[in-house]
């Protein structure tokens, strides 16, 4: 029988106060986790309400103004409060120092400060719900955002504060990865999740200040009329779009790069196979991070920007696709002559390969100048970014949660229910979003409260898928919470992984490791070592007796 260590970071020290003033990266990561899960639920509820309203054309139960606020809230909450902090600040915070064999991140106090900034930023969002939530879309395009009477300033301030939270995390991770690697853990022995977080952190530190500045200018424009974006004062509203996307395009990679890092871990560990093309995967993360700064104009092909600019941005957009493609091929090749276990994390990894590929291919369609003119600002774009952000990042996040859950809590969830739930989410997601490609290509514009009867069937179909998707998440919440209390003890290394986080106890000690780990093998040396795993031993024994 596998035992759970009596003293671990979850119960030592005890009391609410010990959590609120903790410097322990694992506790801060968990507090982030509960924060992002709360906002994932809130953003999800808004999504459900939107889909309910869109079930039929015309008014079903909310007014156009409310609908506009709801899609703004859905987007802004999902982007700024959920998906950007999701993988780095929650899972990354918990796992990164463990994978490095470190006691903590480089700046534990900064880490805690970043969580409090997250909470303060979130409060501005919550307050804006009462004060008349912004109806600008998460993109805050001027001059609409200057003229609307809704609480743009409050939401903007929230985003500004959340930006600093993100910068703190990024800065912390860069220094941690440079300075706190265990003896023997050279750069090319790092797990690929660390490479993903490293590339992400660079973007967080370099790009996030720009959204901060942009929002300050927007707020000043509203308060003082400084005339930088307002055409009535000689300002240029398209300048806002350039500023906004200069951050928000790299931000897309803040969202996807750590997800790609998780997928590298999942595929290698659950296929018990040395990762194929370690260096191409690691370098492609850095390549993506670099090029991501140079493609923002592809959001503006119909904005009136010059034809020359459009040409350059289209060209670079295609070339940011290549490193992503290389990663996908390497992941597929990793399955060759492995020993694949169809665990829940593996099912999420396979779902990711399928959904992210669709997201990537439709990105090529949208990067093509002549076609983007037709598809821009239609449901085709909506479907595309949901395939990348949800089919990519969120599916990777879920895979990562299921992968590291037994490490964090020391207990395993019910694998059968988890696999069925993965199936429900996969099917629900595709029902919701695949047919949005079709109505988008047929000309259905996005952000429409009302639509013509011709699109009725597809909209209703999407709405049904959304409810199925929602059901999947409810089931997941139930079995995950259940496992915290009643789950089967998982042991140190339930999956048989080789990176350092599997060498400590589950849940880990408050100080992570009892002694400084010394690294003698790579994170993926499954061709040389069969890792010890009490949990797998039990499974094999049960199979043999059956």
């Amino acid at each position, binding site marked *: 029988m596998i035992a759970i260590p009596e003293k671990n970071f979850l119960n030592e020290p005890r009391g609410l106060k010990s959590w609120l003033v903790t410097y322990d990266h694992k506790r801060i990561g968990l507090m982030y986790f509960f924060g992002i899960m709360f906002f994932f639920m809130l953003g999800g509820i808004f999504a459900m309400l939107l889909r309910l309203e869109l079930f039929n054309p015309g008014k079903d139960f909310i007014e156009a103004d409310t609908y506009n606020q709801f899609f703004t809230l859905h987007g802004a909450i999902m982007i700024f409060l959920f998906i950007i902090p999701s993988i780095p600040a929650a899972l990354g915070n918990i796992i990164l120092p463990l994978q490095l064999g470190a006691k903590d991140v480089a700046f534990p106090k900064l880490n805690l400060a970043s969580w409090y900034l997250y909470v303060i930023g979130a409060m501005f969002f919550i307050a804006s719900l009462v004060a008349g939530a912004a109806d600008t879309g998460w993109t805050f*395009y001027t001059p*609409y955002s200057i003229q609307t009477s809704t609480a743009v300033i409050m939401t903007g301030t929230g985003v500004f504060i959340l930006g600093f939270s993100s910068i703190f995390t990024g800065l912390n991770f860069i220094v941690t990865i440079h300075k706190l690697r265990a003896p023997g853990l050279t750069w090319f022995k790092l797990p690929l999740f660390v490479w993903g977080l490293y590339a992400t952190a660079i973007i967080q530190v370099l790009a996030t200040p720009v959204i901060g500045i942009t929002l300050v200018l927007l707020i000043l424009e509203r308060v003082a009329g400084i005339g930088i974006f307002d055409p009535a004062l000689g300002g240029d509203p398209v300048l806002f779009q350039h500023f906004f996307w200069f951050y928000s395009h790299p931000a897309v990679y803040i969202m996807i790069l750590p997800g790609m890092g998780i997928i590298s871990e999942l595929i290698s560990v659950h296929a*018990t196979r*040395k990762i194929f093309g370690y260096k191409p995967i690691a370098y492609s993360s850095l390549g993506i991070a670099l090029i991501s700064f140079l493609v923002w104009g592809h959001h503006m092909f119909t*904005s009136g920007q010059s034809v020359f600019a459009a040409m350059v941005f289209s060209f670079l957009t295609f070339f940011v696709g290549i490193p992503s493609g290389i990663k996908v091929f390497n992941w597929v090749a990793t399955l060759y002559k492995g*020993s694949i276990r169809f665990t829940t994390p593996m099912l999420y990894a396979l779902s990711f390969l399928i959904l992210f590929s669709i997201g990537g291919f439709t990105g090529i369609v949208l990067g093509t100048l002549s076609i*983007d003119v037709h598809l821009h600002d239609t449901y085709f774009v909506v479907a595309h970014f949901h395939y990348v952000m949800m089919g990519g990042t969120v599916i990777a996040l879920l895979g990562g949660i299921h992968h590291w859950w037994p490490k964090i809590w020391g207990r395993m969830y019910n694998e059968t229910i988890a696999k069925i739930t993965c199936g429900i989410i996969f099917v629900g997601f595709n029902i919701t979003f695949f047919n949005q490609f079709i109505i988008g290509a047929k000309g259905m514009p996005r952000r429409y409260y009302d639509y013509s009867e011709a699109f009725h069937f597809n909209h209703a179909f999407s709405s049904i898928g959304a409810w199925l998707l929602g059901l999947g998440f409810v089931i997941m919440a139930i079995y995950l919470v259940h496992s915290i209390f009643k789950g089967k003890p998982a042991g140190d290394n339930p999956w048989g992984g080789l990176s350092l986080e599997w060498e400590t106890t589950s849940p880990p000690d408050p100080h992570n490791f009892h002694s400084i780990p010394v690294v003698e093998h790579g994170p993926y040396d499954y*061709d040389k070592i069969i890792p010890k795993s009490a949990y797998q031993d039990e499974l094999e024994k049960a199979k043999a007796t059956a």
Partner: protein
Amino acid sequence: MDSTGTLWLPPGHSTFASDVDFLFYVIAYLSLAFFVIVTVGSLYLAFRYRNKGKRELTSGIAHNVPLEVTWTLIPTILVFVIFVWGFKDYLKMHVSPKNAIEVKVSGQKWFWSFEYPGGVTEVNTLTVPVGKPVSLLMSSQDVIHSFFVPAFRTKMDVLPNRYTRLWFEATAEGEYDIYCTEYCGKGHSEMLGKVLVLKEQDYNNWLSEAAAASSSLSLEEYGEQLYRTKACITCHSVDGTANQGPTWKGIFGKTEKLADGSNVTIDENYIRESILNPMAKITAGYQPIMPTFQGILNDRDIDALIAYIKTLE
């Protein structure tokens, strides 16, 4: 060329449609091929090499140079071809033919208005002849809008502080939807219009009847009136003499040398900028003395002046 619509795309009725649709399907089928490789490949490998109940050492193969070069090079070549192809078609959309009929489009919350040569105006219906290029000079009265006609495969944002242009040539008579595709507030999804494509003869008849019915001044006439009433006449001649400011005669479309040595082509945006922010680009040989007309001339006034300047050949 026309198409009757497919599973993915709506019927196409402009000269751009067949090019856009063809390239769309080229990419779609290429994507499908790669998608099958990735999906079938990963599922096949996952089942073929599934764990048989015992943990064991597995393959250490982590590189294969020919394979890796192939899967880098082939996609790179393909996307380069797609890029050039897409850019070539995009260029066509941005160079409107000289003989195009020019219609002034104005977007505001939440309707479209169209002004034809001769001063005829319509709201939410754009009437055009079939088989003739039509060029839309567009601006917004308030926030950003975007003019989208799915059947023509064309779209362009409509901005409050400058003109944008979009052109098309309809290939079949009929009625086609116009959507606003830049979010503009409460009535965004109601900001709809129709393009009515008529036979050329019918279009001409409609236009002359509508012009006869309209008693108001044409845009050009209104511009000439403003030229005198707003005191442009003090500094700018229309007969070629240079006063404090450059003459307007034949100025439209000319390339002028600026005081800082650069060149500028006199177009709608230059004129608009020179009226609202005269210090931005000073023509070489003239003093920077013109006052701004910000707040004195509204958008329709500026449109009228531009229309008037265009007549001064």
